[in-house]
């Protein structure tokens, strides 16, 4: 079976699993919303201040929400040893990883789709003219977060205190992604929005580097 087909089947499995309960998505959205609301107490959310601090706030909320959301990705395969069953299937380990990366990407993107408009309303930021460009930045940033996050979820699944370990491993690795995503978003929040292509290219580079590394290391990551 080709990697793409196996990944698509696994993606469908993840989506089916999630849409039976929707617990992951609901919890992620509410958690990110709590972060966004709590940040309003740390500075005076006028329009000018929001433009300055908003991008950072938004991405910190996504990073925190993502680092919590990504844990069940491999964590919930542990309860009934379903990961062993997946490993026994005649598919490449990378397909397994890719299926989960895509599923996480869709979950986090769905959460962002709901959160960004709420953020724009609460913090008085206009996104009217930049919807498409914002979507590109969000997609590339979220891709980087989900690529590294899914790999680290697989690492953390075998450790003790895994809920705490995942953010600990993930957040420092994401420092360059955070800077690039925040700067790209800031360029869209400005008075005259103009997408900063340097940072977009940087996000693309981050995604490519870690996707390649995940592909090369997937055999080791998922071995028994």
């Amino acid at each position, binding site marked *: 079976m080709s990697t793409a087909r196996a990944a698509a089947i696994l993606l469908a499995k993840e989506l089916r699993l999630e849409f039976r309960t929707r617990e992951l998505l609901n919890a992620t959205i509410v958690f990110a919303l709590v972060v966004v609301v709590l940040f309003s107490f740390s500075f005076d959310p006028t329009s000018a201040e929001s433009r300055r601090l908003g991008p950072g706030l938004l991405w910190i909320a996504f990073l925190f929400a993502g680092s919590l959301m990504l844990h069940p990705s491999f964590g919930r395969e542990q309860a009934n040893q379903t990961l062993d069953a997946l490993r026994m299937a005649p598919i490449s380990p990378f397909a397994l990883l890719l299926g989960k990366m895509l599923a996480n990407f869709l979950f986090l993107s769905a959460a962002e789709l709901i959160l960004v408009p709420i953020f724009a309303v609460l913090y008085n930021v206009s996104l009217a003219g930049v919807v498409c460009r914002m979507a590109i930045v969000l997609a590339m940033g979220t891709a980087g977060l989900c690529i590294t996050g899914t790999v680290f979820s697989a690492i953390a699944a*075998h450790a003790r205190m895994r809920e705490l370990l995942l953010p600990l491993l993930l957040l420092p*690795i994401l420092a360059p992604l955070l800077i690039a995503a925040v700067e790209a978003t800031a360029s869209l929040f400005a008075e005259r929005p103009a997408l900063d292509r340097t940072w977009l290219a940087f996000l693309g580079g981050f995604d490519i580097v870690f996707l390649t590394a995940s592909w090369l290391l997937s055999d080791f*990551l998922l071995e028994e």
Partner: protein
Amino acid sequence: MKSRIPITILIAALMFFAGYAALFIAPDERTMHEIQRIFYFHLGSWTAMFTALTVAFVANVGWLLTRKPNWDWLGVSAVEVGVVACTSGLITGVLWGKPAWGIWWTWDARLTTCFILWLLYISYLILRGLIEEPQRRATLSAVFGIFAFLDAPLVYASNRLWRTQHPAPVIFGGPESELDPTMGKVLLICMSAMLVVMAVVLVDRYRLERMRHEVDELRVEAETRATTAGPALSPATRN
């Protein structure tokens, strides 16, 4: 064990000479004067850190490719030594920053990169502590180590790009611009002294890890013997 004594003496002499050279032989720096002398060990710490972390990366790849436990021992030893060198680099940097720049810390590309690296490799050590099974611990921490090493240039590039767009509050005014020949020699001595210390500690840490491995193997062997030998022997060995 006998070989330890001459090596210890050698290192002590080398470090003593390096310290003496940095404090008394190196000429006075034009703008920073005495404060600048910490620089010799500061740079030495970073050389040691980068060497140790590169060794750790090679060891991580080596483990994944060959599965020889030696690579795993080398990996964890190099990371530990690297973290110590990084801590020493950060502390000497902060001490130097206050009198030279007027502030303890600035979010400059180099400083930020080293700080993030420090956090990443501490996470590596925490990760190792939380996985029980030796084989799995070695593999998963090697994968994480490779990711961390790949992240380092990205952290540096992102901060470099970011801070050049927004001018930094202070400009790095090290003596690199026109280095006095004596200063260069002292710097070389200090850097090699730090590298030798790092190498010796690394080898020691490696030996310790190997001994731990042996103890673990012996313990497993003793336990299996105790359980297979029957009830007559087991109470005595368990006590």
